[in-house]
């Protein structure tokens, strides 16, 4: 992963501000607003996920757990306490995600590689099972409907801008983390865990820290998502949600910080155009995933970068 690449970063932030900021102004339906919110929140989820895999090399197949936890933090508060408790519900989701990711993290960072992935999947499915079965408390398969944010947040436009600001702030924070000494250390963990121990740093501790950070931001995305969709469902916790966020990241490129966000945008647009028209959407997801893994493992952004580098070096060679 590139440590600094200034112009690309500027382009990304400009896109985020200009396109997403001007979307409501250039006049678009509430449908477009919802689509844009989905891209923003799934994008945050994907960037947070990629802090684990792309940066640290920990492939989690269970981030849906925290995404769903954020959503259920809000949903359960609204359902059992009252709709005024929307914002405290988000906070509750974040705290729950921090505590749970600490506890689960302690258990699963003891193993690495494929086992880590498998365990994240197992814990994710465990929480899904519990939510699915505990009908009286969570609404089971019915999910929770009618989650309306209170006060000024019930204004769609206001909620959209609030979402935009929170997502930008969060991605900026994650970017700071990935450039910080911790971020450098995490890349070392991915490339050579042994050396990390040699220089006196703890591999496990670094992994645990980023696992918690990633999980908390996933929960934030999930909590805000509850307000966009006005409902939550156990699907948020299901393993296919974890699979989707992985695909979004792979699509954009896991070696790039902003790749997962771009991948999310592409994925959600494809989903809107294709997914609504076919009942075999999982088949298409599977085929896209297969294509990316076999042919374009660096993702759209990564392959574009590689192509550019190759063209540039050829031009230099021609001139020389």
């Amino acid at each position, binding site marked *: 992963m590139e440590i600094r690449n200034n112009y690309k970063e500027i382009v990304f932030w400009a896109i985020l501000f200009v396109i997403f900021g001007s979307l409501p102004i250039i006049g678009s339906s509430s449908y477009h607003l919802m689509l844009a919110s989905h891209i923003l929140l799934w994008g945050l989820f994907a960037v947070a996920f990629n802090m684990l*895999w792309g940066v640290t090399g920990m*492939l989690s197949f269970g981030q849906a757990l925290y995404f769903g936890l954020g959503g259920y933090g809000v949903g359960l508060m609204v359902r059992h306490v009252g709709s005024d408790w929307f914002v405290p519900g988000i906070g509750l989701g974040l705290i729950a995600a921090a505590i749970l990711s600490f506890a689960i993290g302690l*258990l699963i960072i003891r193993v690495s590689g*494929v*086992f880590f992935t498998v365990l994240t999947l197992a814990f994710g499915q465990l929480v899904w099972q519990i939510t699915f079965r505990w009908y009286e408390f969570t609404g089971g398969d019915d999910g929770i409907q009618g989650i309306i944010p209170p006060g000024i947040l019930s204004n769609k436009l206001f909620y959209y801008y609030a979402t935009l600001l929170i997502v930008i702030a969060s991605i900026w924070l994650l970017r700071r983390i990935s450039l910080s000494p911790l971020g450098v250390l995490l890349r070392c963990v991915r490339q050579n865990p042994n050396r990390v121990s040699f220089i006196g740093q703890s591999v496990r501790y670094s992994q645990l820290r980023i696992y918690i950070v990633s999980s908390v931001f996933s929960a934030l995305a999930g909590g805000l998502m509850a307000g966009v969709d006005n409902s939550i469902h156990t699907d948020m916790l299901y393993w296919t949600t974890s699979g989707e966020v992985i695909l979004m990241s792979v699509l954009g490129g896991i070696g790039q910080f902003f790749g997962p966000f771009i991948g999310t945008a592409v994925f959600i647009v494809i989903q809107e155009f294709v997914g609504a028209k076919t009942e075999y959407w999982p*088949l298409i997801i*599977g085929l896209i*995933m297969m294509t990316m*893994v*076999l042919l374009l493992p660096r993702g759209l952004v990564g392959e574009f970068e590689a192509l550019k580098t190759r063209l540039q070096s050829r031009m230099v060679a021609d001139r020389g």
Partner: protein
Amino acid sequence: MDLSFLVVQLISGLSLATLLFLVASGLTLIFGVGNVFNFAHGSFYMLGAYFAYQTIAAFSANFWLATLAAGIGAGIAGMIAESLFLRRIYGRTEEGGFQILLTYSFILVIDDLVKIIWGTEYKTILRPEGLRGSIELFGITLPSYNLAIIGIGFVLVVVAWFILGRTRPGRIARATALDREMMNAMGVNVPLTMTLVFGIATMLGGFAGALAAPLRSVTPGAGIEVIIDSLIVVVIGGMGNFWGAWFGALILGEVIAFAVVLVPEWASVVSYVVMVLTLIFKPEGLFAPRSVRKV
């Protein structure tokens, strides 16, 4: 709780354990020999069940013939998947993650192909002739099909142990697990070995799918349930350990069998609890080899 209840549940758990072991041993085999984590292993199990259903529906074949066809069909499907797709990513940096993603895409593709071919409704396979009733043993009535599964599983385990431990192909497979390059230098066709091992592993999964079909109904999406159960087995027993997988299957099978009766609502959660307990107290699995060693 009287004795006959205990025995009936024990037997039911034992037959479940046998099926779990058949699936988990395939998973462990590919991982041990090829260092490939086949996330889609449960999908081959599901394919096996559908192949058996199709063989019976199309040729009104005998159950045992259908089971054989299921195993062979799943084995061939596995070899195709390995040689066309998985082989391309061996040796890539961060191979493990990409293996999981590629096999994850297999799950999605196979699930939907099954839906396209066989539809989403439940399919049922009848128990084979002669095993539909039950047997009276010391005054306790036991379903004879469950006993048959235990017997078949036992035979398959012994055969697998014999092939892996005592024959030349088994030795080649184990040696390939230890050092692929050296085997290549000694003139062993390593890619072919990998494909064959993959085929045998998915064949075991296919057998399990066909054998389990009369006990559970055949549905798309069965793959993911099975893979998670066999992962729990492998976590309990220790990955890459043949006998560990057997013991893990035994524990999980019995736990599920009793949980289904005692806490029916939460039976599916109980198996995770076993896994979490194992992780807390012995994260490398109860039967992990002391040194780092495969198979």
